[in-house]
């Protein structure tokens, strides 16, 4: 590991921060918008039904996709920044 444990620890902390943010959004769109907050979101109609229904059957999946690709690209940046990337 370059520069011993210090770099490794800082890299890991940055990674954990990123994962935490992503998983908070992951939980909000599925458990939040899709299930728990759905009755409240009924006030915002999409195609005749509430926004919560749209999130439960469509929107959450699209957000999951964006989250994974965002995470992957941010991690590529972190890998280089902390010089822990492959090749």
């Amino acid at each position: 590991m370059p520069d011993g444990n210090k770099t490794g620890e800082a890299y890991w902390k940055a990674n954990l921060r990123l994962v935490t943010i992503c998983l908070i959004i992951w939980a909000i769109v599925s458990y939040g918008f899709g299930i728990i907050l759905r009755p409240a979101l009924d006030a915002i109609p999409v195609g005749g039904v509430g926004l919560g229904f749209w999130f439960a059957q469509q929107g959450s999946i699209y957000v999951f996709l964006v989250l994974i690709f965002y995470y992957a690209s941010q991690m590529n940046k972190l890998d280089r920044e902390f010089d822990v990337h492959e090749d």
Partner: protein
Amino acid sequence: MELQTLTYIVVGATFALYFGIAIWARAGSTGEFYAAGRGVHPVANGMATAADWMSAASFISMAGLIAFMGYDASLFLMGWTGGYVLLAMLLAPYLRKFGKFTVPEFIGDRFYSQTARIVAVICLIIASITYVIGQMKGIGVAFSRFLEMPFDQGLFIGMGIVFVYAVLGGMKGITYTQIAQYCVLICAYTVPAIFISLHLTGVPLPQIGMFSSVQDGTPLLVKLDQTLVDLGFAQYTQLKGSMLNMVVYTFSLMIGTAGLPHVIIRFFTVPKVRDARASAGWALVFIAILYTTAPAVGSMAMFNLANTVQPGPVTAVDGSLSYEARPQWFKNWEKTGLLEFNDKNGDGRIQYRKGADNELRVDRDIMVLANPEIAKLPNWVIALVAAGGLAAALSTAAGLLLAISTAISHDLLKGVFTPDISETQELLAARVAMAGSIGVAGYLGLHPPDFAAGTVAIAFGLAASSIFPVLMMGIFNKRMNSQGAIAGMAAGIGITMLYVFQHKGIFFVPGTSFLGDMGPNWFFGISPNAFGGIGALVNFAVAIMVAKVTAPPPEHIQHLVEDIRIPKGATGAIDH
């Protein structure tokens, strides 16, 4: 052309394609047999993962589940896709960095314990075998329904095909056939959906069509709600069950998905750690194409069904369809027994209602299988749906069988019982284990044991309550030791199985359930299928407490954890 002939041609052509790939992608080493030489492009691996993951149940049954459950079925959509976020961020890149071949191997090394490795092998085999029985049944059903072939003959043909490409090519053969199978199954799923969406709403994209308006200007879902309420059913777009159960069930499916070994091992096949992250995203892209189409298929199929049998107002006598005037597809599917009319009031009309007056029984699988006929699509589309259903079942079966056979040859033989065997011997053992697993799976498909009915509960319950937590703690908790991991796994599986068995019968044997499978007896209204999430929380809690009061893992294990956390130094592709 006759539908039967056309179906034989289309299905035959796809099988010929799989054989061709099998011969081209033979495996020459254990590295190729277990991990396709780690040379699979992340997009290709994403496609193979999608086929690996989407089973006969996803292809045939899910849209039907959504059609009859409406909003409540969203838990399957979110649960079975949200797991990929966890896989991409919490497991896949680290397990790829670890650079070995199986899930039990990681557990055994990380927790420096053969016991932990053997416990993991047992969990993996139980979860995968129960899962594979469902696929074998799906293959037999698809053959008997589309090609009018006896169930067991269909099953033997399916076994024969998997045998050729899985025994010859291992992971390498399976990967490239899964890519072909994905293309077949996704075309078969989306083509009818696009036509139905065009027909009902004028919008070609089903994902948008489902939120658009039908001919008279009312939104499709609003009209569907009205129709169902008129017939006495609950509204399609509103929650019918308990919100807490929905949250816990979704959580269980998410972590269960992330913990299924046959999905995890697919991420060992990519060349780099960063490919593993991106590949999880690509897998979800290919899965999402089907999973965002499914709710449209479900709602539109329900809309078509309800409006076909109830063309007029419920109050009018002639509002219900006369049995004599039923369409051709109705007659076709009546023959299969998936659609049944029982003229209780003797008026010759089909009353589809909630409760005792109902005269129509509809099997949920019909929603996908009969779709092309309901939409009056040409015969080649129907033939394509048959090939798609078979592709979905075959690809998942092959992935599961690989997970089982590598656990036997690599973890049990090479890892525990006969560590001295050479690579050639291990490769032979892997092939024999694969052939044996196919035989066992085929036998169980023909003679399903009682517990096969609880496939989903067991496979997801085990993956969620044992495999996912132990993998995650192995990576994210440096202090986690073997005592904590083993106690956590035992507690997680124990409580989940206890809950499933007490409500569904010991090993699903009817009459042995001591609490009964009834809502009022469920703990806080959580259904047995949803309990894996609670089991996982118990696993985490027990493991952390036990690890706190026992000795920390040895120095070299802590270094191992530090090492898998960074991408640098990963072993690359084996022979590229």
